[in-house]
């Protein structure tokens, strides 16, 4: 759409600007302020310049959780995106069955995150949970509170359970927007199922898929409550992701300076990767 140049439009944006500036800029400035100080308590802060930033680059605990975070987010995207597309392709196209599928699929998205953790905490337990009990019954030794790999897989499974529906719903709405004529043309050409998917459905899904990847990346990178409730970050620190490390550091140990410095780097990483996705979105919008 052709847009008109008009700087008065700022008046319409002003409320949003003020609101978000209030709840984003002030806290952000506070974080920046902390990040250059060593804080022992109220009124006992010393300016240390870039020391924390230098330390962050060598701090093993932070680097470990950063690596864990990247592996986790990568795994989340690799599993959820293809699975979500698959589910969307299987969903009924319309009618009461279609609406029913939509509502049922959306349920996990509407459960508070701590309850998601609680559900899996119960569900995966060997003694009182159906899932844990079932796996143990199959003769596989499974215990998510004791074994690192089991804990990892449980957190991953929980996230797949929780968020694959979002990807599926995004793709479903993308698929519904493809005109029927496209499929009829494909039928006349006797295109195979794969060809229909590869050359008709997938290209038309591009813009919703970018949104899906963007949302899933951002949210999985910030994951905190669910693993915190499920495993508490353990066993050891095997499922302690970035947010949890930072929160423990800032509130648990009151090590504000260090936590703030790393928060900023954390924010910049998310920002950089999201900027790449965002550029891809606006690019895709332009092509259409």
């Amino acid at each position, binding site marked *: 759409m052709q847009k008109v140049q008009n700087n008065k439009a700022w008046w319409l944006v002003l409320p949003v600007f003020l609101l978000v500036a209030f709840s984003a800029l002030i806290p952000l400035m506070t974080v920046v302020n902390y990040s250059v100080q060593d804080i022992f308590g109220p009124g006992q802060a010393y300016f240390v310049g870039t020391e924390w930033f230098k330390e962050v680059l060598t701090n093993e605990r932070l680097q470990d959780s950063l690596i864990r975070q990247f592996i986790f987010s990568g795994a989340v995207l690799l599993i959820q995106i293809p699975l979500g597309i698959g589910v969307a392709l299987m969903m009924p196209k319309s009618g009461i069955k279609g609406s029913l599928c*939509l*509502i049922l699929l959306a*349920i996990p998205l509407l459960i508070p995150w701590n309850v998601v953790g609680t559900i899996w905490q119960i569900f995966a337990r060997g003694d009182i949970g159906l899932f844990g009990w079932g796996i143990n019954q199959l003769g596989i030794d499974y215990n998510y509170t004791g074994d690192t790999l089991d804990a990892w897989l449980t957190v991953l499974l929980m996230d797949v359970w929780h968020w694959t529906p979002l990807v599926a719903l995004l793709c479903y709405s993308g698929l519904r927007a493809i005109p029927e004529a496209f499929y009829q043309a494909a039928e006349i050409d006797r295109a195979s199922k794969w060809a229909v998917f590869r050359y008709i459905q997938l290209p038309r899904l591009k813009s919703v898929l970018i949104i899906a990847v963007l949302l899933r990346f951002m949210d999985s990178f910030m994951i905190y409550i669910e693993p915190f409730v499920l495993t508490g970050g353990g066993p050891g620190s095997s499922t302690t992701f970035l947010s949890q490390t930072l929160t423990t550091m800032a509130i648990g140990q009151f090590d504000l300076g260090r936590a703030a410095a790393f928060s900023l780097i954390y924010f910049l990483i998310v920002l950089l990767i999201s900027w790449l996705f965002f550029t891809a979105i606006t690019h895709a919008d332009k092509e259409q």
Partner: protein
Amino acid sequence: MRQTRSKNVGITLFILLLLTPIYWLLNMSFKTNQEILGGLTLWPQNFTLDNYAVIFTDPSWYNGYINSMIYVSINVVITLLVALPAAYAFSRYKFLGDKHLFFWLLSNRMAPPAVFLLPFFQLYSSIGLFDTHIAVALAHCLFNVPLAVWILEGFMSGVPREYDEMAYIDGYSFPKFFVKVFLPMIRSGIGVTAFFAFMFSWVELLLARTLTSVDAQPIGAIMTRTIGASGIDWGVLAAAGSLTIIPGLLVIWFVRNHVAKGFALGRV
């Protein structure tokens, strides 16, 4: 024909797997603690509503749900009120710094709440809003407003400019046009935006918990007290968890007809 059937089997299977953990929670909420810990039963042998009774008879329990509902509602209203004009500006006009502003807004959706936890606490304490519903509602605007602007902008861009011009020629003033003509045209967009704002505010706990202590405490924070000296009260925990699913179900029921289109965020 066979293709459709295998598809139906596939989707049914997926949804069943999706619902099993939730069934397990429900199942557990109708059991006594003796039964829960006594052994695995696929459905409640001694069906009981005691766990729910605990919640519905104790104000410190059910107030949690009320508190959560209050701040979520305030948040949805604020989000829509500020996001609607802004989204209109972004969809219709070019102005100084528009692209940067848009990305800056979105970047707040990307800010990890953990980063803002302590500054938020200090900010709201210093202006005397700590432990109020409005504090949580404002804090949740941080991630809901950018998303709302993004979604609404997508829907509004789908409405041709000609409508704006025709209304202008017909003598509508801008506010009248916006409320009477424009908003009804993007009804489903507004419904979907409200749904997303509700969803992300309802499920968030980290900020809500940090900014409240007693008067505005969300249900998620209250749930942690089922963990007592004598272990976890599984039955009440399960009942409290089950109840948190209901508001979400109601909301999705209201917007079910717009969901298919809405999940594309107006961008298909």
